[in-house]
């Protein structure tokens, strides 16, 4: 009994690390650019497909591929910001929502046209490797993803606190007008923040490819989870996203075992709607909640 619970907790936490990894980019973009990027999951999908193809065509290991695709998606993100996000930065909500939603549809169906709707997965030597720790099983790629998520949170924290660019980003997140008056080039900040947020999806895509299959709508599934995580933790809040990820991971692990894995998604979407309604600022509060009408 206790063993089951511990095993479920470990499964949940490692799963949660993956969710956190995917959600951090979303929360960063929201915090700085104040845009809810409905296409976030699609960039993860691109990262996953890219990792899949480079592995099956060139036999490049996902853990090496991530050093290629993280920067590539960073660039892709910056380009996307220039082309699609910048024109709607001051537009009414309808434009902001449907522009990124439109992008998500474009990417999803572009993938469908290019790569068909097949599920594609890759088999590495370590895909199913487990560490047996006092009778508890820990899947190695999941553990790696979890540790990277922890590392990313720490790195981003240091980046935001210690570097000029990071501080400027922080300033823009708190008050874009004031930051601009202090000489921060907010357009550059938006572009970089969006790039980092998308680059993180490249990293996440490579890291989860050993364990998950990819398909054109994989981004929709993970993207919605990322929303749940981010809302739960408090939009724009890095630590909140990490905690939110762990909570959703645990919920999924336990409800999958005790209720039914089929209902997992329904359960955390209900949690999501409940959190939005009861405590819209999430566990850790929201950056700029008043501006978004959430307080």
């Amino acid at each position, binding site marked *: 009994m206790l063993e089951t619970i511990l095993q479920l907790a470990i499964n949940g936490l490692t799963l949660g690390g993956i969710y956190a990894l995917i959600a951090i980019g979303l929360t960063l973009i929201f915090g700085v650019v104040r845009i*809810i990027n409905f296409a976030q999951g699609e960039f993860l999908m691109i990262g996953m497909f890219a990792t899949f193809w480079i592995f099956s065509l060139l036999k490049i290991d996902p853990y090496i591929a991530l050093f290629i695709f993280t920067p590539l998606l960073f660039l892709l993100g910056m380009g996307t910001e220039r082309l*699609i996000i910048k*024109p*709607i930065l001051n*537009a*009414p*909500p*309808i*434009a*902001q*929502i*449907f*522009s990124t*939603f*439109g*992008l*998500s*549809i*474009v*990417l*999803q*169906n*572009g993938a*469908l*046209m290019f790569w*068909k*709707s097949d599920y594609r997965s890759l088999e590495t030597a370590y895909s199913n490797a487990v560490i047996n720790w006092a009778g508890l099983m820990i899947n190695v790629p999941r553990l790696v993803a979890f540790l990277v998520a922890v590392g990313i949170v720490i790195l981003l924290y240091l980046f935001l606190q210690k570097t000029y660019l990071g501080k400027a980003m922080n300033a823009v997140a708190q008050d874009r007008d004031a930051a601009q008056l202090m000489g921060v080039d907010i357009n550059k900040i938006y572009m970089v923040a969006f790039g980092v947020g998308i680059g993180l999806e490249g990293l996440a895509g490579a890291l989860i490819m050993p364990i998950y299959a990819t398909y*054109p709508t994989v981004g*929709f599934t993970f993207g*919605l989870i990322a*929303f*749940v995580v981010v*809302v739960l933790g408090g939009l724009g809040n890095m630590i909140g996203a990490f905690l939110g990820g762990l909570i959703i991971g645990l919920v999924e692990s336990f409800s999958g075992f005790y209720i*039914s894995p*089929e*209902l997992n*998604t*329904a359960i955390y*979407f*209900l949690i*999501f*709607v409940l959190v*939005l*309604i009861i405590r*819209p600022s999430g566990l850790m509060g929201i950056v700029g909640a008043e501006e*978004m*009408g*959430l307080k």
Partner: protein
Amino acid sequence: MKKGNGAGLRWGVLLVLAGILLVYPLVERNAFYIHLLVMIFFYIFLGLGWNVVGGFAGQLSLGHTVFYGIGAYTSTLLFINLGVSPWLGMFVGGILATLTSVVIGVPCFRLHGPFFAMSTLALGEVFRILATYWRDLTQGAMGISIPVKFGWRNFIFEEKAVYYYVILAFTVVALGVSYWIHRSRFGSNLVALREDEEAAESLGINVPRNKLWAIMISAFLTALGGTFSAQYVLFIDPDAEFSVGLSLLMAILPILGGVGTVWGPVIGAAVLVPLQEGLRAWLGSSLHGLHLFIYGGLLILVVTFLPRGILEWIQAWGRKAIPSLFPTPLLEKPAVPRSNHFMAWSWLTPKGTGDGTLMEVKDLHKNFGGLAAIRQVSFQIQRGEILGLIGPNGAGKTTLFNVISGFYRPDGGKVIYHGEMISSLHSAYLICRRGMGRTFQLVKPFPSISVLENVMTGAFLRAKAHAAAQEDGLEILELVGLYGIRNTLGKSLTISDRKRLELARALATRPDLLLLDEIMAGLNPKETAEAINLIRKIRDHGITILIIEHVMQAVMSLSDRIVILHHGEKIGEGTPREVAADEKVIKAYLGEEYVLT
């Protein structure tokens, strides 16, 4: 006379179109074209349904398949299991969807913009998963095939043309509903709350209730669409009924055509559906996803570059090319142009001055956390008076306004208005309905509707019909001097005109007391003089005025009496002369060198 001809032409065109639509399936032998028309009207119908809550009310739902799916599953399950005719099941589904929309709307309408959209998107997914999971009822992912038994009772027809007439009738009903909303007080309320919820409340609009009505109507219509589709395709499954793509499409059509307009969804579907069906017929399934790829791209382009949709283009072109078919709203002066309009105001009878207390503020108190923004403030305002409220920045003037007008709850004390304790109503819209109008320090004119429509949102509080609201609106615009720009959009006004517009809108609710919050800030001397005259004119017709103002010259010359706030406390009260002479007041606020001239 000229106007009559234009209307005749419009009716003529409409009748010819209707005639063509009615006769066409009788002469068309190619089933594909009939199918195409069925699809076009089906999507017009869905778009019109979404548009009620997504367009008019601006609540951007991405989960309308919840209602659609409920409609499809309810009528189908009733038909298959109990033999209930889908015609009846359709209404059962509609009612179920309406009830569901209330359950969803009550909590989710507390969320705004993208958060509302996200929550509806998630709920759509929840319903899809539930429909897949609940196999005993829905047969899960296998879906349900409706046995093909032709007949009117079964809502199953061999001839596609019959489906065509059915969906045509549905669409006409939905268009009627949209047109009614567009012209009614309800529609005006929806537009107001879409543009700015706080301002809408200050105009006496019950925001939550109006949103709920909107989603209920929308859900009902959408559910009917679900039943129709089930009967047309004769197969339903969770992925089709609760598909995100469909939710999206329901939103795209009105956005492409012109969101929040009657004809927008029609145009959107007329453009997009032939494209979709054409591509599907041309490419077959060889390039799966292409049509959605195109939708997505189109959506980005439209919301970025053409946020008001294709309809605006068509109208702009039509007004130049065929002006009689596309009338410019209110090009001519209204039927009875009167000089000195204000005097002839039918509803504004002079109420005399100085006959008793209109409002009493007693020991009013308001805290923000540990900070007391207003401390035990008491004062009275007499009928027909202009009472100035002054004090340094941060003295609590606007907070006091917000408490009086019901936007903040007081932490102590009371406000008695017309002999009624309004501070226990805790509701801005109810206070407005009792005859109190207000403006906002940071002006909130509704940006994407015209000046006249702005004022009409206020006038609809008292006016029952569109014509009456319009007449009130025009009169008030003439009074405040905005008549000439009545068709300009709210967002393209100068600051001076915005302030006047806000005053006009508040005035249109026919208040007995008008709260004006820094209506002259940022105006040049000429505009200030005009504003002073206007406020006097309004008072002369019996409207009592409480005014916050920093322009000293204005407040001194306007006010009968002045109340001074400092650090949330009332530190003085009296006529302008008395106040200006009061040493405490001078020290706190006016500055040593101020001399009354």
